[in-house]
């Protein structure tokens, strides 16, 4: 329980730091008021409208009052509308989050589906032809920027072979499964391949070590089949690094898929944030940053808690 409370306290501190910084960041932006007015467009210029707009952002309030309003709005979901698009910010963020979450889940699944079997086989035949080949390929995936991958795959699969759309649309899975698949396939692959490379390297390395353990030697001596040794005995204790990396990537991918989203015109949270920055959509950016920070810290919090339950040595060690 003390471990849990300590982690919870860390989470609260991080959340406070993020929300406080974000709420005050607006005031530090040069010409913030002018940019807001310009972003809002011509209708907001008369003094009454201008004051109403600036008041709604609490820009002229003292620091702590600004923070209080910001947190209040955040909690009550009173996020207002975008300056440029007149769209409810809550809708914009939930739409973007939905797209990014799907992309993240698909990307992770595909990456794991590629990485785990490849890593197991590479570790089993460590130093062999497949190991060397997969190592080369995985380094290739890791070192290829995803905008390069997006361009190459895009040209091949969309322009040349016309198998997938060049610009993806957020078509619902239950609405049109085939169109959903077509629209998310390339972004998923572009996102998944570098991840798969990294996951494979991690898992292979851990598996090689595990396969040298005494209990594996014992299992072999007892005549346990190779597939059972690999998948039944060696894989599970080797997943620690992979689980950590995958968990950390959850937060990174939700807001960090901006390159992939931009490359395929997919309007996820990352792309919305970047467009929001360029368009002076300060409130949208503020709230998105807080949400992304929350995703990060909550994910890491859960992983930390999970470690504690999975391996008591972690819990005891960190307390000690």
């Amino acid at each position, binding site marked *: 329980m003390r471990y849990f409370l300590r982690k919870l306290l860390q989470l609260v501190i991080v959340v406070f730091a993020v929300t406080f910084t974000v709420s005050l960041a607006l005031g530090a932006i040069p010409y913030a008021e002018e940019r807001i007015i*310009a972003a809002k*467009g011509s*209708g907001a210029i008369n003094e009454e409208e201008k004051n109403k707009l600036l008041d709604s952002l609490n820009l002229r309030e003292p620091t702590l009052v600004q923070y209080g309003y910001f947190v209040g709005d955040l909690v009550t979901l009173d996020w207002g509308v975008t300056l440029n698009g007149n769209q409810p910010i809550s809708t914009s963020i939930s739409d973007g989050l939905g797209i990014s979450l799907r992309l993240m889940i698909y990307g992770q699944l595909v990456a794991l589906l590629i990485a785990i079997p490849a890593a197991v086989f590479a570790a089993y035949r460590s130093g062999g032809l497949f190991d060397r080949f997969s190592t080369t390929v995985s380094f290739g995936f890791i070192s290829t920027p995803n905008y390069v991958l997006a361009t190459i795959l895009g040209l091949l699969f969309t322009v040349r072979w016309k198998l997938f759309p060049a610009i993806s649309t957020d078509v619902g899975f239950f609405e049109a499964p085939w169109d959903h698949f077509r629209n998310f396939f390339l972004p998923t692959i572009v996102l998944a391949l570098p991840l798969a490379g990294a996951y494979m390297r991690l898992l292979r390395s851990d598996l090689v070590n595990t396969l040298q353990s005494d209990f594996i030697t014992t299992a072999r001596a007892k005549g346990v089949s190779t597939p059972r040794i690999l998948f039944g005995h060696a894989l599970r204790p080797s997943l620690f690094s992979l689980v950590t990396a995958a968990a950390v990537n959850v937060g990174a991918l939700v807001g960090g898929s901006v390159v992939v989203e931009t490359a395929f015109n997919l309007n996820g949270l990352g792309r919305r944030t970047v467009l929001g920055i360029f368009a002076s959509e300060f409130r949208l950016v503020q709230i998105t940053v807080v949400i992304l920070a929350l995703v990060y810290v909550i994910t890491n919090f859960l992983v930390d808690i999970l470690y504690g339950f999975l391996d008591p040595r972690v819990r005891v060690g960190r307390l000690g």
Partner: protein
Amino acid sequence: MTSTIRSRKRPGVLFGAVAVTIGLVAAACGGDNGGGGESADTVAAAETTAPTETTDIIDPMTAVTPGGTLTMGIEAETSSPWRPSEMVCAISCHMVARTVYDSLMIIGGDNSPVPYLASGMEPNEDYTVWRITARAGVKFHDGTDFDGAAIAENIGRHKTALLTGTAIKTVTDISVDSSDPMTAIVTVEKPWATFPWYLTGQIGYMASPTWLLASDTDEALRAQPVGTGPFVYSDYKPNEYYTGTKNANYWNAPFPYLDEITLIPIADSLKRRDALKAGDVDVVHTTNGEVINEFRSGLDGFSSVEITNNAETGYTLLHVTQEGSPLNDRRIRCALANATDNDIINEVVSFGVNELANGPFSPGQVGNLEDSGYPLVQDMAKAQALIAEYKAENPGELKISLATTNDATNLVVAQYQKDFYEEAGIDEVTIDQIDQGQYIVTALLGNFQVFQWRNHGGVDLDQQYIWWHSSSALDIGSLALNFGRIKDPKLDELLDANRATVDPAEKKQIAEDVNRLFATECYNLWGAYTTWLIAFKSGVMGLDAANLTTPEGARAVEGAGIAGSFFPHTIWRQQ
């Protein structure tokens, strides 16, 4: 089939990307890297594009197959959609707006405004009072009647707006004729013969007063426009798509032909091209030199039209009245003009698709001159002599700052400019990269010395009034559309004279004088006229705006009044 229309043919000498073009204050502009940045259009949408040939003009319903859908890739999302007085309207904005709104006037085939949604527009003798009559029997999509009150409500909202308000600030009164509820009366403080031009674009778009009122309190409604146009708003997701469905009761039958139209903002021009090739969209527009060259060489299954007439000019904007700035001195400004080698910039950045500019008026615009006096060829010796003369009178280091965006192409242009200016004798040129959002604000506030830009498309000189007249040159720190804060009594005089006359010969003379004045004073450093290309799948028909006719039989000008655009009314799909 590739039907490529080129109105001017000087490949190999073009500018193009000096410009981060921005529309009025186009916070939402997307961009065409390598082709000229983003496009900036405007209040008085009247950037008339007139291709030199006609491709597919048809008589309505004689050869048309109604039905089908069309998806277009447009270059940018629009800021502050979709109330006409608030939209920050570059070309992509007009493409969307024309689906849902009709303008009171359109530019006719003879390059003059003709009534469209209005049935008539009559001035008094000295052009200080205009009577605008609503077309009878027209209803907005929500069932509200279109009448004089609707016109007054719409124009009245522009009066208080930052951008469009500047354009019509000489309007002193807007009312409804007490004896004719279908007529609105607009009074201006001094003669304004060219006022109808302003109703061909954004200020002329008519929105439902019922919806406008409701959206005053419900901001989310502002993104769900209600007009009288050929397509009824169906769905809109910013940065994703805008969809309109056929207005079955459209007042100007047989338009529209399509059942549905979708416009998708795809900022990257190469991605837009790929989307067309992949079949995701049916039509795209672009100013990107690479893409234009590709379509010039011909692509199976696609057609294209190219438009340069009346398009914007890419240029470098100078702040000419900043206290203590060397740019207040004409010699420095003209030195920069002479130092610049636009040929090199155009070849490298725009693949040579544009035509070098010698003034603000592109081919087809009134005032365009074969030789305005502006240097089209680099003359470094002259530039160095001018700067040396200035330095002799003003000792000390000569420094200027050059603003550009974060865009890589624009940075390349800036680096070329820096080299040219320093070779000419400027001691230090600093390049300030500014993000898009702040770039526009910087221009409005006047916090710059040298600034990449693109603007000034159109037909009539009056469309440039707001950009150059001293009444739009507010102090630094105030939002003003005369970005360079030009305060030239001679220029004011010419602009006012043009505004007060309808005599074509006189207007031509005035516009040409303005062109020469700019060349003499070097207020701006001209780059190149923008080339627009509209590329589309074979089987997409009716893109020529001249297919749009009014009930009285007048045809719209080819090019729809804004380079790179068309009227969605007239599009149809060949089965």
